[in-house]
C-alpha cells in the first residue's frame, strides 16, 4: 500500500480545505450584493465544473510554468498542485455556502439590524451559524473531491513520489504497471473515504440546522 500517496492526498485535502473555506465563505457572502455582475461572477466560479481537467491543467501549466513562490517552483511541486486544487475546488466550496446564505430569510437579517447589531456582528452571530450546514457541505465536498482529483494534478504536478503523487495518481500508476491488487486497495480507501464524507454531509450535519447557542448570549 502506498502510504506516502495517502498521506500526501490527506495533506493536500487539508491544506485546500484550510485555505479555500474562509475564502469561500467570504465570496459566497459578498456575491449576494454583486448586483448585475452576479451572473458573470457565478459563471466564472462554476467554470471548473464544466472545463475538462486537462484544459484547466494545461492553462495552469502554462500560467505557472517557470514561476516560483518564495523560491518554490509552482509546477511539479506540492505548492503547484495546491494552487491547482484550490482553483478546481472553487465551485465545490462556494456554491453550497452561497445557497445557505441565500436561504436565510431577509427579515431575520433585518431583525438583527433593528436589534442594533453591526454588519460584522450580524455575520458572526446570525448568518454564519445559520449557514453552517452549507459550510459543512462545502467542506466535505471539497475534502472528498480533492482526494479524488486526478487530471489537473497530473498535468500540473506530474507523479513525483512524496511531492505530487497523490492516491489517484498512484492508482493510475499501479494499473499501468498491472498491480491490480494495489490499485484495488487504494481505490477501496478512496471509495470508503468518499462514502464517509458524503454520509457526513447528508447525515450528521445535514439533518439539524447548526446553531451557535452561545452566539446571542
Amino acid at each position, binding site marked *: 500500500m502506498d502510504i506516502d500517496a495517502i498521506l500526501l492526498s490527506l495533506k493536500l485535502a487539508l491544506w485546500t480545505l484550510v485555505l479555500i473555506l474562509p475564502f469561500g465563505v467570504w465570496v459566497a457572502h459578498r456575491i449576494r450584493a454583486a448586483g448585475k455582475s452576479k451572473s458573470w461572477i457565478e459563471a466564472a466560479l462554476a467554470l471548473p465544473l464544466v472545463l475538462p481537467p486537462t484544459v484547466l491543467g494545461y492553462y495552469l501549466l502554462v500560467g505557472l510554468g517557470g514561476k516560483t513562490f518564495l523560491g518554490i517552483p509552482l509546477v511539479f511541486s506540492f505548492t503547484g498542485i495546491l494552487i491547482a486544487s484550490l482553483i478546481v475546488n472553487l465551485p465545490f466550496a462556494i456554491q453550497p455556502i452561497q445557497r445557505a446564505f441565500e436561504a436565510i430569510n431577509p427579515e431575520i437579517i433585518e*431583525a438583527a439590524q433593528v436589534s442594533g447589531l453591526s454588519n460584522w456582528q450580524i455575520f458572526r452571530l446570525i448568518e454564519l451559524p*445559520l449557514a453552517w450546514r452549507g459550510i459543512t457541505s462545502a467542506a466535505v465536498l471539497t475534502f472528498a473531491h480533492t482526494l479524488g482529483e486526478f487530471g489537473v494534478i497530473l498535468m500540473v504536478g506530474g507523479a513525483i513520489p512524496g511531492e505530487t503523487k497523490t492516491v489517484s495518481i498512484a492508482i493510475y500508476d499501479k494499473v499501468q504497471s498491472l498491480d491490480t491488487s494495489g490499485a484495488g486497495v487504494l481505490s477501496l480507501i478512496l471509495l470508503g473515504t468518499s462514502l464517509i464524507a458524503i454520509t457526513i454531509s447528508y447525515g450528521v450535519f445535514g439533518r439539524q440546522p447548526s446553531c451557535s447557542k452561545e452566539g446571542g448570549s
Partner: protein
Amino acid sequence: MLKITLSQATPNPLQLSLECTPGELHALVGPSGSGKTTALRTIAGLNNAETGSIVCNGEVWFEANEMKGVTTSLSPAERSCGFLFQQYALFPHLSALENVCVPLYNSISEPTKRKAQAGQWLHRMGIGELANRMPNQLSGGQQQRVALARALARSPKVLLLDEPFSAVDAPTRQGLYKTLAELRKDLNIPILLVTHDLREADLLADRITVIDQGVGLQTAPPQVLFERPRNSRVAELVGINNKFEGVFTAGKLTWDGCNHVFDVLDKGKIPPNTPVAWVIPADGLSLHNKPSSSSIEADVEQISALGQIAVIQLLLNNKAYTLTWEASAAEVNRLELEVGKNTHVQIDGSKIHIMPLRTINDPRRFTS
C-alpha cells in the same frame, strides 16, 4: 415625540405626515398594498424615502430634500426602534432567551447580566418558563411574545408593530391586546401599529391614520374617524356602510332616498347646491314599528345574526337605497323584525356627516 414627513414616488408611492406622542398608540390603517408597512420600514431605516424627515425626541434619524438629497440617514442599528415583524422573524438557531439577548449584545457586555435582563423581559411577557425553548418549539402566540420582548429589550425610543396580531388565533390575540395595553402604560414611548383590521385599531389606538395608495388621508381618534370621515374614500375604507349622495344647501341636505330634508351642521365650507357624500353612523338610525312624520318606510331585506349582534339590511320603499343597521339580538326581538316585514326608519339629522364628493380612484386628491 416621533415626527415624520415622508415622500417618495417609487418603488411604492408614499406621501405621509404624522406625529406620535410618547405613550400614544397610533394605528396606520389601510388596505393591502396601501403603504403601511413601507412607512413603518422607512421609520426603522430598512427603507429610505426620497424626501422628508424622521425626527424622534429631537434627534434627526432621516432627512432628505430634493435640492441636497439625503443629508442624514441613521442606520437601523442607530435608530433605536423596537420592530415587531409580522412573521416575528425570530433567530431560528437561538433559544427564546438568546433571541432576547441579541439586542442587549452591545449594551451589556457581561453574558450573565445579559441573560438575566433578557429573562426578566420574558417573565414580563409571561413566558419566563419557555426561556430555553427554540423558536420552532413555541406556538405562534409564544413566538410573538418572544419577538415583542426582543423588540423592547433594547429600551427603544419608538415601538413599531407590523400587523402583529394577524397570524395568531382569536384567544391568543385577546391576550396579546391585554399585554400591549399594560406595556403602553409603562413604556411611555410612541407606538405605531400597522393593521388592516379596523376593529383592532378602534380597540387599541388613540389615533388612527388612514392610508391609501401610500397617501395619508386622515388622522383622527377612532370615534371621530368613524363619525366624521374626511371624504368618501375614507368613509369607504373605514367600512361605513350607510354612505349616500345628496345635495347640500345652507344647512339643509336633500336626498332622493326620501322626501324629507335633513337639518345638518353647516360649517360654511360648502357652497350652495353642492352635490355631497354623506354618512350616518349606526347610532344615528333607529327603527320603529309605527310611522312618524320624518320616518322613512322600509322593508327588512336580510337579517344576519353575528352572536349577540345582528346586522339588518333595510330596503327603502323607493327600492333605490339600502340601509344597514346594527342592533342587539334583544332589540331585534323587541321590534319583532323578520325578513320581509315593513318597518320605519328614523334618521337623526344631527348625526349626519357630509363630505366632499370626489372620485375614489385618486386618493391624492383628498389630501388638500
